[in-house]
């Protein structure tokens, strides 16, 4: 156990000031301190993407990010999306999930993609999704969901 350090960051639009041991990883912090379970750990090595959260808008593996690394940063988890965001709605509409374990990470990954590129081609979507593992779906339906969400977001803006 290491000495606690102060940590100030924004979590799902609320500013937080806490103390954390330097050894604490972000996924444990979210679960144990804030009761947020969406960033679930699978491989624990930053390889599978199941625990993806957005740190200043960038997808990060929460299992392999120290809590102190998010000092001053904006952290978004699946719980911060509210359940009815365009990406979430698209995933629900086409059943772009099965066991659901990778789903929060996939949704956050897609959310980051569509903020960066509101009109991605299929190859771009496939390239982005390749950072996260899904053992259930076969991915094609996830691609469809992301493309459908992109269309919905563009339509809402038009």
């Amino acid at each position: 156990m290491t000495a606690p350090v102060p940590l100030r960051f924004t979590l799902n639009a609320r500013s937080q000031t806490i103390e954390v041991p330097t050894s604490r990883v972000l996924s444990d912090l979210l679960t144990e301190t804030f009761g947020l379970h969406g960033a679930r750990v699978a491989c624990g090595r930053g390889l599978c993407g199941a625990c993806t959260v957005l740190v200043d808008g960038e997808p990060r593996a929460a299992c392999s990010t120290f809590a102190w690394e998010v000092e001053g940063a904006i952290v978004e988890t699946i719980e911060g999306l509210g359940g009815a965001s365009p990406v979430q709605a698209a995933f629900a509409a086409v059943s772009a999930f099965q066991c659901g374990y990778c789903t929060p990470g996939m949704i956050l990954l897609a959310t980051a993609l569509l903020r960066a590129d509101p009109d991605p081609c299929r190859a771009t979507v496939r390239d982005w999704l390749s950072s996260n593992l899904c053992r259930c779906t076969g991915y094609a339906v996830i691609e469809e969901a992301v493309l459908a969400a992109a269309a919905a977001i563009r339509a809402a803006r038009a």
Partner: protein
Amino acid sequence: MIRADAAAKVAGTARYTVDAAAPGMLHAKLLRSGRVHARVIAVDAAAARAVPGVHAVLTAFDLAPVPMPVYGYYIKDQPILTDHVRYRGDPVAAVAAETEAAALAALRLIRVTYADLPAVPDIAAALAPDAPALFPEAPFGIVPAYGAGAAGRLRPVPNVCFDFTYTRGAPDAFAACDHVWEDRFSFPRMTHAHLEPFVCLARWHADGLLEIETSNQNPFPLRRELGRIFGIPETRIAVRVPFVGGGFGAKNNCKTEPLAALLAQVTGRPVRLCLTMEEGFLTNTQHAATIRLRTGAMADGTLVARSAEVLLDAGAYADGSPLVAERAAYRAAGPYRWAHVQAAAACVMTNTAPAGPFRGFGGTQVTWAGESQIDMIARRLGRDPLDLRRQNLLAPGEAYAPGDTPLDSDVAAVMDLVADAMGRSRAPGRGLGLAIGFKDGGGVNKPAQARVKANAAGDVWLACGSVEMGQGAQTAMAAVVAGVLGCDPGRVTVAPIDTRHTPFDQGTNASSGVAVMGRAVQAAAEGLRDQVLEFAAARLGLPASDLVLVDWAVAHGNERRPLAPMILRHFGGTGFEFTAEGFWKQPNDPAAPMGSPCPFWEVSVAGAEVSVDEGTGRVTVHRLIVASDAGHALAPDVVRGQDEGGALMGLGQALFERMLWDGGTLVNIDPLRYRMPMAEDLPADFRSLAHAQGLGPGPGGAKGVGEGAILPVAAAIANAIDDAAGVRITALPLSPDRVLAALAARGAVDD
């Protein structure tokens, strides 16, 4: 359609065992042996026990108070903790501590003294005449009752824990054949790689109740095992299963649960045991196999006789291996008509991680061999592979084996559907291949019970033991209930699984959801509907047969009478709940080889288009199209998910997935070195075709679809490689080194 679990899963609020916690909870960690095969002489845990926060350190020498500290399916050979290390990774000690960090710190202080034994790292070593036995004495085991032509044996030789044979027709059929071909195939093992780890939370309550929340596919068999291990009645056990984050077969029988329960008993605290993904790789695997097929045919292409010898690498403990052996042998005939079949499968014990159930369950191994060989035979006879298949395919209604369920699919129609989608002519430099996946579906001896209840307002609860592990069980079962009750599926809530309240079920496996449990659920819903109609008929003074239930109203002709006021008026203001039970079990029949006729036949077809880079040996799959006969798609998204998910798992198996063992050490033990399909591996054209012939036994003619699509993919790709490059590869995966070697050998023959 919106799946029943959609809202919770996209919002991130779905609850899994991995989320479970309890006040005062301890964390358990396991010391896994670094030896491949060894005796544990002594364990010094004094320093570990002295680590602050550590509540218990247990070894095999501490198990005396446990009545039966071993588990397994037919063979109870796997100890909770071992003093005989049978694979590198076998747990020899367990720690429970206030934090995971303290538990890990304690593990590092445990000193184990070993006496190494000669290693038996693979099938060949295990079957060598002087091989050391993994089990010097036979463990307790049983052989179930089989039907006509089938037989099983425990431990025919010391390193084979079980073998199984199935025979029909006379062996002299081979003598009458114009051709007899013998080919050998090999098959490596995959890891399930379910993303939610093996995890459970165990606690003993003051009243003696053992409560376990766990990520497990079969809560009731687990309850039975725990009762036997701890010597307590099942009434003192509650197994609860929330959403499961993937299983694919791995989460059957006991895994983490007995040890967590023991640590909880010893410490008097709730204990959480959560394995890492690396530990998951070492806990359960698919079966590697070698398959020898001998096939006799007439000059006109008529298939006559088939013999199959399957050696399965069972790893260090039997786990589900005997059941997989049964299926590997029984399924080795494929969907074709034979005068004679002789199939044998043996479970060979090796000093590697235990192998067990894996999506496809022995069918994957023999489909790889069988659907490769049928193409090889077509080429030898100068025949089109599809035409040769068509000539020999069983017809709908025809018997696969005497005593078993007649074929309930038009397999040729599924084949033609895929072949038409692929197109019959190939582009320059490309090759086309097709293969058929075929297996008995729904399992054997799987009683399923279900309960449906509805309140005065028409809100419906369904209680059944089908675990929602992603396959869509809740959605499909809710659709069955809604269909019978004439209500929106959104009115049906599936109750959480708790073995104290949930009706009995044998387990969530064998693609048995709609064809077995679906029928129990349907019966329960029909019982409830009939009660409601009888109740309304008595109130209205009309015959029940004239009434129809629609949106919690009874319709009589054009007139609709809402039920809620009728119920409240009769039962009083607090209302009433209608409740009905349903049951289904395929009847036993000694004429059926597996002891009962299979609930249905699971049929799938894969078509692949590939090109082969002759410089690098790399195979590119440009198109992969699969179709299965769903019978009736209760939930089309769910069927699609099973087909495409299974097909991509098959693609991984075909091209790159394999656990690499080096003398008993698993080399690629994480998802970096063990390659799994990613989105970028999707073929440019990857599709599943919706298809349902309506001949299944489930509601509306539905059949199971959980495993079919993984079966044919590897053979379809190997067949396409042969079509593209003229080389036949009989070992998986179809990796660049193998392709280059085959291309070089082709050149040598050509020269």
